[in-house]
């Protein structure tokens, strides 16, 4: 149930400002693709354009093509709400809904869309998703407690459970570990390893070791200069990027001689 994503000649704008220019890449199915690069180079912007979250910001727009399963995401007859159901997202800061319990947070995708689920089916989805997010054993006795009572790492895994409960094709992660301690980070990385057998995962990270640990492919984004649009410098299998990159800039960034 995972799909690959083909991106061609993608330009992303905020109003008149061109933020990301000329990105073309293929993100393979059932694998983890990491996006690395210095701050402000457009990794997160690119990630958000993959499920049309980009246009939530007023004035933001996209030119170019993103094709999933033979359909252009930015085609005229595409419903962005439907796209987001198929392409889930986990954010940098854990953001469980404060008015909902842990149980309801996991079911938020169906609850908020007023889908009728039987008690038995709901329990099944909650347990499956929480097990999938590696959180079940920690919270199974307090499912009716508010989601905000959990620790940061648990909240982030709750958000992942919430995202996989709607069974998307693709899972986007925007620096999911940047607000977490090493133990929670390691828990989430383990989780990513498990999830990649079912989902196409794209992860933005500032942590080079993390990219090396979790991903099959790595894309390096960079800015030519301050104020210039970000662009894709190189995309290659992770092993090659970290051992023998094609571009000088990539090597400089990875070895820490830059930015």
């Amino acid at each position, binding site marked *: 149930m995972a799909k690959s994503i083909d991106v061609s000649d993608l330009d992303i704008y905020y109003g008149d400002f061109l933020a990301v220019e000329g990105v073309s890449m293929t993100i393979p199915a059932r694998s983890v693709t990491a996006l690395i690069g210095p701050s402000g180079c457009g990794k997160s912007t690119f990630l958000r354009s993959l499920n049309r*979250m980009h246009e939530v910001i007023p004035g933001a727009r996209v030119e170019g093509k993103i094709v999933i399963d033979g359909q252009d995401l930015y085609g005229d007859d595409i419903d962005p709400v439907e796209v987001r*159901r198929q392409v889930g997202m986990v954010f940098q800061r854990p*953001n469980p*809904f404060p008015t909902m319990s842990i149980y309801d947070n996991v079911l*938020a995708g169906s609850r908020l*869309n007023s889908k009728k689920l039987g008690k038995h089916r709901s329990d099944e989805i909650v347990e499956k998703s929480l097990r999938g997010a590696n959180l079940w054993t920690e919270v199974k006795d307090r499912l009716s407690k508010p989601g905000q009572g959990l620790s940061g790492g648990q909240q982030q895994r709750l958000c992942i459970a919430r995202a996989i409960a709607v069974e998307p094709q693709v899972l986007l992660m925007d620096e999911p570990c940047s607000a977490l301690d090493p133990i929670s980070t390691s828990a989430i990385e383990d989780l990513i390893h498990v999830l990649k057998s079912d989902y196409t995962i794209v992860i933005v990270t500032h942590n080079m070791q993390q990219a090396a640990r979790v991903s099959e492919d790595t894309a390096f984004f960079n800015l030519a200069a301050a104020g210039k649009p970000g662009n894709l410098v190189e995309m290659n299998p992770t092993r090659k990027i970290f051992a023998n990159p094609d571009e000088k800039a990539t090597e400089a960034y990875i070895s820490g001689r830059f930015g």
Partner: protein
Amino acid sequence: MSDRTRTRTAAETTSRTEADPMSTSSTTSSTGTPDPGGRGRDTSGTARHLALSQPRLPSWAGWLVAAVAVAAAAIICLSLGWSIAGGVVLAVVIFAVALPAWSAAVENGRAAKDRLVTTLVWSAFGLAMVPLVSLLFTVVKNGAGVIDGQFLSYSMRNVIGPGGGIYHAIIGTVLVTLAAAVISVPVGVLTAIYLVEYGVRNRTARMITFLVDVMTGIPSIVAGLFAYAVFVLFFGEGVRMGFGGSVALSLLMIPIVVRSCEEMLKLVPGDLREAAYALGVPKWRTIVKVVLPTALPGIITGITLSIARVIGETAPLLVIAGSTDSVNTDLFANRMMTLPVFIYYSFTQPGVPAEYGQQRAWGAALVLIVIVMALNLVARGLGRLFSPKSAS
């Protein structure tokens, strides 16, 4: 070593001030001055000692200065024949000068400024409380005796002299205000939702915001005249009905509801909206099921405060709802009495003898204040009830 000296000087200060409170300032200045000098010598001598501890006034210094200030003010007032108010002001002034001066002598400039500003802030608070307490006291004193079962359950129909009650006015106020809330809350909340969720950076939203600001400043009598003018179009000259009052009150209420709801909706983090969008939830469902529940406590508080704000309006109701002595439960026909209008008429036309009407006015004023206070308490309760529960 310097610590020990300082403790000793503080102890000396204490004993001397206790022995002779009236010579406070002279004592402290004599013991206070050598101390900084001693500290200076100390640091230059050893060059290692960190001066982290500072001489402090004893904890009861404030009370002592207050007592001295009150005593001094009392003496001056008695000798010059001033009123109590003048004496209180004088005592505050003496306190505000003496305590910082003492502090500047013993402690340092920063502590003195701190004490001065603290005194000023508390004085301002006290000043603000004076009218409130005085008002409550007067209303309770004059009104409490009037209120009994009959006062709350009788109308003024065929009452001359003693007796009668404000039942008809309570009914009128409740109905008119309720109808005003029924009109204003949907309009206000929906406007706020448009402004925050849909109209970001757009011309219409800016115009609405401007008009809402203008509406906030409409004099209430103008709102009443507007409602009268509208209803004259449909029902002819001389129309009086409770619903007209509701329309006038809703004109005053809508901008308050819009403003408070707008602020509350803005406080909902964008993260939550994005989280919902990312789950494939359409925008309107996100607003209804995520944004509104999260902002609900604040919205309820805002609505209740706006009700409390308009429930005491007199002028528009004088114009359009009119005045009557009988109970009228029909919002859409005939005159309807309300508490503020009742108070106004009971006070300006108390009848003969005047005392009964005036007593009823005080009683009605007390009831109105109690209703407003109860509304505020209900708002707080509801706000707490609906607020998101964080940690277990």
